[in-house]
């Protein structure tokens, strides 16, 4: 059909092309002010950041400028089908989101009869379609950051992107704080070079520092403070959040919330569609299983998490879109902006770990801005009751705790440099200027950049023995080129910044006596290899909503059969954990310290706190409580800093080290979001009492100086960080053409490479990158430092005869999760003593 594009002035005095105003009018809708404002600003050539709550029509606003421009564009003459480059790139952190947007955009575009071709491109897109997209690109491509990096590293990038006009970043706030965001910022810098006129549109939820996002969207240069414009949509009804009231006993610890199943099930029955969010994959599995066990009405309840097979996830998403489901149990795969049907309730099982995250999840219900979203928090244990209550008291959902973006990772830069060499020969000066136009790399110095080039070329070692094996070489014309085509191939296979734990496919097979035969049945998803290491054939576990029997591992697949047991023998591993934000930790601590607030809590929780008060004491807000008690031939110290799991883990490492030096013979520790427990062979309580162990010395602030350095250099944490840096930077391969290297082999060799590199070239650029990473995110040094300062001179020790009520939750964690610590050698010594004792009884 023919489309006229006579612009009309609408009531706000802004330009909206005719098909759009007609379409809005035909629905009795009025374009929203922010949608028109964004249209006008971008039409004037500005890049923009749009901050809006869910339900504000953010997505349509983001696409309006490019849809308007595409509509106004002249249609090519029939027969003169020349190459037309991509017009708009839409980048989403989630594959599912890109797919969802395609669906939501297709309808208005079809209804308006716009001459616009929209396609998606994700890791799931077939090879043939990808090739076709390069030769005959759509007008709008919906994709993910990794796909963009692949496209710009291609020799045809210039042709594909030369006419690019808009780049839309959805959920920008969730991207920029990660290495994924760093890589994307470098890709954007390259896109700007290929298409100097492009404008960027960032879509974001409320963030703590919007200017950081505004800078991210536009090129940076020394001395300037260039920023995209900003439109902020405020308002929206505040959500109604309650805590699930249960007649059942709330457990001391654990994350299953099994006790609350009857109430949760009843709530599902009382609503149209309920989204049930949990924090980990295994929680999702368990909850899903339990709900089906209670599902006497056969309600359509589905499961959605990242380890499930893609086809299965698509089916759930499609059914959701058709409003066929009554409930979906989901993990963070559904966190971000997916806009589905008539969700009228969100249930959050487990404590909300982070205010922004909770707001995002609650925003899934009732996608109309003027009506309040409804959400029910379901604590899984008694500590979480406190956390949920603190969240509600503090109007938590309004708080903003998105982490700052930080400096761009050097490992990410190395990956990008290789990709740029794969695209076309480059001059170092030009690439440096391009890279430093990306906000996270604006302060990158030239010396570091040159070191990264040297690293990409030959490893950048002081010992120059790899010249003959260089991956990129500077030729006589001064341009860097890849040495051979295999380098580009290797780059493509190793792209991305997401380092996953080694995973194996889970495949259903029929159980034959003893042997495994045939190709096996359908794939169910993926599971971590280290989890499988703990299983023996015949063990049953929960996955994909089914109880499965582990049959064995064949090549890269985990073979399972259907089991009919009532209960799985091995619970699934807990998966990822999130640091508790300072914001909530303080709220929880304040609530515990103030008995007048306990009336708001369930009786069993306030009883528990009262008992703690009688037996020991309550952790006060301005001091640190330490309890010591003996148990099963070990001496325990339990600390209550309330600083989050990451900071506690770092603290545990450092304290164990000091206790070892003080002769307490610590054996291990375990950290939760609230507390830390260390156990030792020596009676630490007695040592404190008679002065052999000084708590002041133990918590001296210099802990974060030399001790931290010394510990860091040897720690598993730095090794794990190094492994990620080594893979991202391309030092270690993710995959090799033809033969898949298992992730476990990578773990082993990365540790050894780290040891060799550290002892021979401790200042190597990759070790520098590793240390910077560790200090930034993994250790929470900052929070720990603030705590050490605060508690100085305010340490309260209680020597107890037995475990205190408040210590019960963390004591139950021991043995449930792997113990980290430095006590490796004592474990070996103990095992060796066994043999000695045995030998003596034999002789």
């Amino acid at each position, binding site marked *: 059909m023919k489309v006229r594009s006579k612009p009309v002035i609408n009531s706000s005095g802004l330009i909206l092309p005719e098909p759009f105003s007609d379409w809005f009018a035909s629905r009795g809708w009025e374009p929203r002010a922010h949608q028109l404002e964004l249209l006008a600003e971008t039409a004037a050539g500005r890049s923009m950041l749009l901050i809006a709550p869910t339900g504000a029509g953010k997505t349509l606003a983001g696409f309006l400028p490019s849809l308007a421009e595409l509509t106004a564009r002249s249609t090519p003459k029939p027969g003169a089908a020349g190459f037309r480059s991509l017009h708009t790139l839409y980048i989403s952190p989630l594959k599912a989101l890109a797919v969802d947007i395609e669906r939501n955009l297709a309808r208005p575009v079809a209804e308006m009869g716009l001459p616009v071709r929209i396609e998606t491109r994700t890791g799931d897109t077939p090879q043939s379609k990808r090739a076709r997209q390069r030769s005959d690109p759509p007008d709008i491509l919906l994709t993910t950051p990794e796909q963009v990096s692949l496209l710009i590293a291609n020799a045809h990038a210039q042709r594909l992107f030369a006419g690019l006009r808009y780049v839309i970043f959805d959920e920008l706030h969730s991207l920029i704080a990660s290495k994924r965001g760093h890589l994307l910022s470098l890709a954007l810098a390259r896109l700007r070079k290929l298409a100097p006129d492009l404008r960027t549109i960032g879509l974001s939820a409320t963030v703590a520092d919007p200017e950081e996002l505004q800078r991210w969207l536009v090129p940076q240069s020394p001395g300037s403070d260039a920023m995209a414009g900003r439109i902020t949509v405020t308002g929206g009804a505040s959500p109604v959040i309650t805590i699930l009231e249960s007649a059942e006993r709330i457990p001391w610890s654990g994350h299953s919330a099994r006790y609350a199943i009857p109430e949760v099930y009843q709530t599902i029955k009382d609503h149209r569609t309920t989204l049930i969010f949990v924090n980990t994959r295994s929680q999702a599995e368990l909850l899903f299983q339990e709900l089906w066990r209670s599902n006497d009405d056969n309600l359509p309840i589905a499961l959605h998490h990242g380890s499930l097979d893609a086809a299965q996830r698509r089916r759930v998403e499609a059914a959701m879109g058709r409003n066929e489901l009554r409930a979906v149990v989901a993990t963070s795969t559904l966190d971000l902006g997916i806009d589905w049907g008539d969700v009228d309730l969100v249930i959050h099982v487990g404590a909300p770990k982070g205010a922004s995250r909770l707001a995002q999840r609650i925003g899934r219900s009732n996608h109309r801005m003027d009506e309040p979203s409804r959400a029910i928090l379901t604590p899984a244990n008694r500590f979480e009751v406190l956390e949920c209550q603190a969240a509600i008291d503090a109007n938590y959902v309004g708080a903003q705790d998105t982490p700052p973006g930080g400096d761009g990772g050097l490992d990410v830069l190395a990956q990008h440099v290789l990709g740029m060499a794969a695209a076309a020969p480059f001059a170092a000066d030009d690439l440096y200027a391009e890279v430093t136009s990306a906000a996270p790399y604006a302060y990158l110095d030239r010396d570091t950049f040159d070191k990264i080039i040297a690293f990409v070329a030959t490893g950048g070692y002081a010992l120059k023995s790899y010249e003959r094996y260089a991956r990129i070489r500077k030729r006589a014309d001064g341009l860097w080129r890849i040495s051979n085509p295999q380098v580009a191939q290797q780059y493509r296979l190793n792209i991305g910044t997401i380092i996953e734990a080694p995973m194996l496919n889970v495949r259903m097979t029929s159980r034959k006596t003893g042997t495994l035969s045939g190709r096996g049945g359908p794939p169910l998803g993926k599971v971590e290899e280290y989890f499988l290491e703990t299983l023996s054939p015949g063990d049953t576990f929960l996955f994909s909503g089914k109880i499965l029997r582990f049959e064995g591992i064949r090549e890269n697949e985990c073979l399972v059969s259907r089991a009919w047991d009532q209960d799985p023998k091995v619970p699934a591993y807990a998966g990822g954990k999130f640091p508790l934000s300072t914001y909530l930790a303080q709220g929880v601590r304040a609530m515990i310290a103030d008995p007048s607030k306990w009336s708001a809590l369930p009786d069993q929780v306030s009883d528990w706190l009262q008992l703690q008060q009688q037996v020991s004491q309550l952790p006060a807000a301005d001091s640190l409580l330490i309890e010591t008690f003996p148990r099963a031939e070990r001496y325990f110290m339990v600390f209550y800093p309330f600083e989050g799991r990451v900071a506690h883990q770092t603290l545990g490492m450092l304290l164990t080290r000091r206790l070892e030096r003080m002769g307490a013979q610590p054996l291990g520790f375990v950290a939760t979001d609230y507390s830390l427990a260390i156990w030792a062979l020596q009676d630490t309580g007695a040592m404190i009492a008679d002065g052999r162990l000084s708590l002041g010395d133990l918590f001296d602030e210099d802990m974060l100086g030399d001790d931290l350095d010394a510990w860091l250099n040897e720690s598993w944490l730095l090794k794990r960080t190094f492994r990620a840096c080594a893979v991202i930077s391309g*030092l*270690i391969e993710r995959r090799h053409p033809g033969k898949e290297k298992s992730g476990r082999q990578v773990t082993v060799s990365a540790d050894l*490479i780290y040891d060799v590199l550290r002892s*021979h070239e401790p200042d190597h650029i990759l070790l520098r990158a590793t240390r910077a990473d560790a200090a930034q995110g993994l250790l929470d040094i900052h929070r720990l430092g603030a705590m050490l300062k605060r508690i100085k001179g305010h340490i309260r020790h209680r020597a107890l005869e037995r475990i205190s009520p408040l210590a019960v939750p963390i004591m139950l964690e021991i043995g449930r999760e*792997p113990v980290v610590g*430095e006590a490796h050698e004592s*474990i070996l010594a103990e*095992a060796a003593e066994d*043999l000695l004792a045995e030998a003596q009884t034999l002789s």
Partner: protein
Amino acid sequence: MPGATAALKTRTPASGPTTVDVTVNGTAVVCDRTGVIWLPDSGTLVVSDLHLEKGAAHARRGMLLPPYDTAATLARLAVAIARYNPRLVISLGDSFHDRSGSQYLPDCYRDELIGLQRGRQWSWIEGNHDPERPAGLEGDWCSQLHVETLVFRHEPNYGAADGEIAGHLHPVARVVRRGKGVRRPCFASDGKRMLMPAFGSTTGGLELRHSAMRGLFDQNALVAHLIGRERMYSVAFTRMNG
């Protein structure tokens, strides 16, 4: 290597043996914490899976691993050789990580190796990574070698093979106590056969429970001699998990 590895150790030193004496098929064998075995009666020192030039081997294929593995491995080997001053050194296969390893070996490392070989016999055993005689280096070349009651070959023969000393599998033992696992390279022996740990600085390992180990040992007699940070630890296979 002055200073490089002399980091201040703050932990209490673990007192214990740095060697373990065992008997394999009637021959006295000393397992040394450096990762070699010593046969006192014949003055033989055995080292397995040196994997020299592993970094360079990967670099040839586009993975630019640090070029320091050979230096680190040779330095440790020099310490072991200085301690025992052996008449014969057996390198039990996979001495080089790939076929090009010995050919492109940098001169400094070649000189160091030649220095270690001086004044003693040296036998290279064929391995799967280095199925050819090392280029430009002294020493015998063979697929297996008999010394006293023992036979040295790179890959273990499955089935009865009394007195076999082999490498190849890079054995590590995983000891679990109170829910915590510790993994260390080890010498594994049931008194009839022994598997030696990989000596190379960047070589990984395979646990004794791995299916590749199946059928090699009498599990009730199997003891793993683990290489700890400062000493050796001996743990029976049946007691790995407490």
